[in-house]
Every structure is written in structure tokens, then in C-alpha cells.
């Protein structure tokens, strides 16, 4: 129980008839950067609001440094939030916005002025005290919102899609700046996004959410390379999903027959028994569409449907004989494949990842 900065224990929350959170648990250590990743409506914002105290759970506990804060008012929690829409006070200038929490706590004016100056310097907005929020660009508003949330030195900073409204270039830049800030201050960040790239770039750990549950919690490489569920494989790694039945097990090499389009293929793993249905996840760059093949070769049979070039990779869409689509990615411009070519999709047994176990 000890040692964690934040613990969520079996949190449930419904709005009307909709069960938004169906029992989630999470432990976060001091100084960690953890991302809640999921598509909209998965419950990630509700989770954040429950941590902040803006919403109270129907069931479960929230612990901050081991102390139960489930019923504590938001103003009495040592947690601050950077809101999705920034939520800057439009009637106050930047200085008053940033200094708000100090003023509420009746900090002496001189100290407020000094600390606001320091915070603005930290987010590279020195001298902006007198500006009104309406005069700022999106990126500047974002920085003010961060400065305002950090000035009180919270133990935990919650960020609700803070970069959602910014353009791609600014997003990249702000991602790095946020990461830098977090390292410098040593504050724990809980970050919400629906952008898997952002999550993979910034986080110490990622918690993938779907329908009010955590699908997988782990470091970025684990979530990316060893997804536990087909949802995580698709959402984080844009992986292909293949269904098959175990044919035989030889050591740690398992061979399968495809459920829908036939074909034989391999993976590595333990604890499989013949006849067992298994789902495999395969990222596009781990599989190859091969034109010259024998009937006996393992692989998924299909026909090339489409070729396109994106992000320095050639993307080959193959229609499997079962009707599903399989995407292969490879380096280079041309693979000597044309739409209509019959192919077999093959992979190294170790790169196929059994999911949904």
C-alpha cells in the first residue's frame, strides 16, 4: 500500500444509465509520467475528474500518499488540473490567472508577484503578466494554464488532452517542453490523450482504456511490442489481428490453422493446447507479403488490393481469402507487387503476439 503517490481502488461511476467506469484500479509512483490513452468516451476524463475531486465515484477509493481523499473537496486536494479548454479566467490578466491559487490562499502580494514571474519564466512567457487571455495564441494560453496549475507546487498534475487544440508542429514542441518541465520539477503527471504517438513519446507508463476499463497498463515498449488485447494491439500499434486454431505445439513454436481464410502459420509461446482458438496481433512492418510461394509454405493466402506510399514506408493492403484486410508495411518504394497479385503473408514466429488470452 505504501510508497505510491496515488492509488485508485476499484472505482466505479455511472451517469444515469450509462456505466462510465466499471471498476478501475491504478497505482502511480512519485515522479511518474503516466498517460491514460483511449478513444473518446472511454472514461479517461471521468477518471481524471474523480482524481481532481470534481466528480465523486459511486464505488471505490481514491488515495493520495496513502490518505483517503475520496470525499475531499477539490480545493482541499493537493492536485491541480490543466483543463482541456484551458479554462483561463477571461476577466483576469495572465498574472492574475497564474497567481489565482496563491491569492485565494491569501499569500502576500509581493510573494505572488515574484512567484508568478518565476512561473511565467518557466513556461517561457516572461513579461506577459498584463496581457488578457483573449490576446493570447493557443500555445500561449496552454502555457498560462500550465503555469497556473503548477504555481502551487501540487504533488500531482492532471492534464486533460492539453495539446488537443494545437497544430501538429506546436504539439511536438509542447510535448518536449512538457516532458522537460516534468523532469525538472519532479512532479507526477497524469496525462490524458487519444493520440497513441503522443502517449508513446512522453510516458513512463501508458494505461490503455476502453469502455470504462483498463485494457493494459505498462511502459510504452511493452504496450507497443507485447499488447495484451487485440484492442491495444490495434489502437497503439495499428496491428493486424489474425484468428487461428492451435494445430500442434513443438517446443515453444506453435502452429495454427487460420479460422477464416485457411492457411498455416506460426508463433512462439507456451501453454497452448491443440484445438485451442487463439488471436494473434501482428504489426504491419513485421509481416511480409510474398509473391513466390509454394502451396506447402506457411502464411496467410490473399490478394494485393492496394499499394500506397506513406511516411517513408510502402503500405500494402492485402485482402485475405477470408475477406479481412491485412496491412503490410515495408521499406522502399516498390516491392514488385501489383494489385491483383496472389500473395502469402508470412512472418517470423517470434513477432506474432498472442492476445486476448
Amino acid at each position, binding site marked *: 500500500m505504501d510508497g505510491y503517490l496515488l492509488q485508485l481502488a476499484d472505482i466505479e461511476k455511472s451517469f444515469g444509465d450509462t456505466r462510465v467506469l466499471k471498476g478501475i484500479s491504478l497505482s502511480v509512483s512519485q515522479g511518474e509520467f503516466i498517460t491514460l490513452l483511449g478513444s473518446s468516451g472511454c472514461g479517461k476524463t471521468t477518471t481524471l475528474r474523480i482524481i481532481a*475531486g470534481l466528480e465523486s465515484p459511486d464505488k471505490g477509493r481514491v488515495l493520495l500518499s496513502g490518505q483517503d481523499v475520496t470525499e475531499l473537496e477539490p*480545493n482541499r486536494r493537493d492536485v491541480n488540473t490543466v*483543463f482541456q479548454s484551458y479554462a483561463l*479566467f477571461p476577466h483576469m490578466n495572465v498574472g492574475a490567472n497564474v497567481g*489565482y491559487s496563491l491569492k485565494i490562499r491569501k499569500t502576500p502580494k509581493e510573494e505572488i508577484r515574484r512567484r508568478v514571474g518565476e512561473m511565467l519564466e518557466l513556461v517561457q512567457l516572461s513579461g506577459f503578466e498584463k496581457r488578457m487571455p483573449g490576446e493570447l495564441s493557443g500555445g500561449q494560453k496552454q502555457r498560462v494554464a500550465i503555469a497556473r496549475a503548477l504555481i502551487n507546487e501540487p504533488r500531482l498534475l492532471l492534464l486533460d488532452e492539453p495539446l488537443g487544440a494545437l497544430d501538429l508542429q506546436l504539439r511536438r514542441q509542447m510535448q518536449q517542453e512538457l516532458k522537460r518541465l516534468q523532469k525538472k520539477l519532479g512532479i507526477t503527471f497524469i496525462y490524458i490523450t487519444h493520440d497513441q504517438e503522443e502517449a508513446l513519446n512522453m510516458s513512463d507508463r501508458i494505461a490503455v482504456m476502453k469502455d470504462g476499463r483498463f485494457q493494459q497498463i505498462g511502459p510504452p515498449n511493452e504496450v507497443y511490442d507485447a499488447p495484451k488485447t487485440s484492442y491495444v494491439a490495434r489502437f497503439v500499434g495499428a496491428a493486424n489481428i489474425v484468428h487461428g486454431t492451435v494445430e500442434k505445439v513443438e517446443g515453444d513454436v506453435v502452429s495454427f490453422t487460420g479460422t477464416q481464410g485457411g492457411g498455416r502459420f506460426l508463433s512462439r509461446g507456451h501453454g497452448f493446447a491443440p484445438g485451442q482458438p487463439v488471436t494473434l496481433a501482428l504489426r504491419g512492418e513485421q509481416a511480409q507479403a510474398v509473391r513466390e510461394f509454394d502451396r506447402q509454405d506457411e502464411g496467410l493466402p490473399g490478394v494485393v488490393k492496394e499499394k500506397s506510399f506513406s511516411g517513408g514506408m510502402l503500405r500494402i493492403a492485402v485482402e485475405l481469402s477470408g475477406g479481412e484486410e491485412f496491412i503490410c508495411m515495408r521499406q522502399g518504394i516498390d516491392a514488385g507487387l501489383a494489385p491483383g497479385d496472389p500473395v502469402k503473408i508470412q512472418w517470423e514466429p517470434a513477432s506474432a503476439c498472442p492476445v486476448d488470452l
Partner: protein
Amino acid sequence: MKKKRKARGGALAVLPLYIFTLAFVAGPLVYMLALSFMTRAETWGVVPAFTLRNYQDIFQPVYLATFWESLKLAAVSTVLVIAIGYPFGYFMAKLTAKWKKRTMMLLMIPFWTSSLLRLYGWIIIFRAGGVLDSILSSLHITEEPLKLLYTYPAVVVGMVYALVPFMIFSVYSSAEKLDFSLVEAARDLGATPFQAFRTVSLKLTLPGLLSGVILTFVPSMGLFFIADILGGNKVVLVGNLIQEQLMKAHNWPFAAALSVALLLITTLLLFLYRRLSGVKELEGLV
């Protein structure tokens, strides 16, 4: 070229508005101002002889007292209207769309009937042995009739009743624009519910409150028929005074001078109020 034509078209479009304002607002004001410096004729009408007498007359204690009473009544009514109308408008803005519509409907329905008729309704409620008395005595709260009709409180109730919808509407339109995530941000940053209200919600709905005050305070100085109907002869306001001078005493110049004085007082008060509250814009007014 096109722009020029467009601009001219725009000017033409607002021309009727200018003419209307000149004819029905500026014109009468100038006429009233001129009238206030003229002399009352011996028999009937006005003689165009310049005099300051009308303004000097205002400073007679009896008239000063009337002004003072009117200001007090307007202040009391306004405070009560704020007390009822502000929370009403504020919380109405937080209702779901369906309930907003229903509440708005309920607020609008009384406007389908003449305000004069509705005031007579209050007579039925207030008069000795009327609705209020029967309810109170049947509940054994009072034994004797309250005799509320033709009293100061009855006039205040009438004023508040007539003016509270305007406060509700203007606060509502201000509060509807209030982004509730700002209140949450304030709470998140350490504000108690009251502090969050004072520093964020109230500040951002102040324009609505201020226009509500104007829509309440200014009319309540002059709504003579409310004082007439519910106050009998006991409550005399500036509005009553003007009406009396105009319709009964036929002293038009004095009535005009009183009106100018009333206009100056309300303008001055609004100017002061606006200065003190620091609000630059008024909800739906300016």
C-alpha cells in the same frame, strides 16, 4: 466600388432608425427641456417666458421629500429584485435545455396579460378579507386582516413583481454564457464554492446584473400607477408627482422640470454605479 455601395445601402437601412430616434426620443426630450424653462399660463397652457422658477420649486421640502421617498423605494425594490432575480436567473442557466424552455415559458406567460390587470390581481390578494388574509387565517397564522392594501409594503411587492422578470432575463443571458469549467478550474485551484462564486461566476455575470439593476431601478422611480393602485394616496412617488402636475394641476412646465430632474438623478446614479462596479459592457443594452 462595391464596398461603397454597400456602405451607402447600410446607411439607408438605418436611416428610419435615426428618424425614429430623432422624432420620438430626441425631439420630446428637447421639447421637455424647453418646456421646463417656461412659465405656466394663468388659465391653461404655457407662456414662452423664460424662468428658473420651476427648478426652484423642486427644492421645496415637500418635493424634495418625494424625491427622497422615490429613491428609497427604488433602492428597496432593486435590492429585493436582485435577491430574487439573480439566483433565479443564475440557476435557470444551469437547467437542462428542456427545463430552461419550460421555465422561460412560465416567465413569459404573465406578459400576455396587461400589467395593469395583473396589478388589480394584487388588490384581490391584498385587500382586507382577500386571498392572502383568507389563506393566513385558515392556516391560523393570523386572526385579524392584515390590511396590506394601500401600504408601503404593498407598493414594494407590486414593484418587485413587475420588475423581477427583467432582472431574471438579463442575469440569465449573462449566466448562460458562463463556462462552468471556469468554476471548476477555480475550485481545482483551491477556491471554496463561495470564493469561486465571488471571484469567477459573479464577476462574469456582473454585466447581466448591472443591466438588470438599470432595468429595475430606473422604472421603479417612475412607475406611478403601481403606487396609485396598490398604495392609494399614501405613497407618492416622483412618477405620481409628475403625473399629477401634468394631468390634474395642468402645470406642464413644473412637470417637465421634475422629469428633467428625475432624468438627471437616474443618469448620475447609473454613471456612479457603473464607475464603482467597473463593468464596461452591459448585457444586451450597450
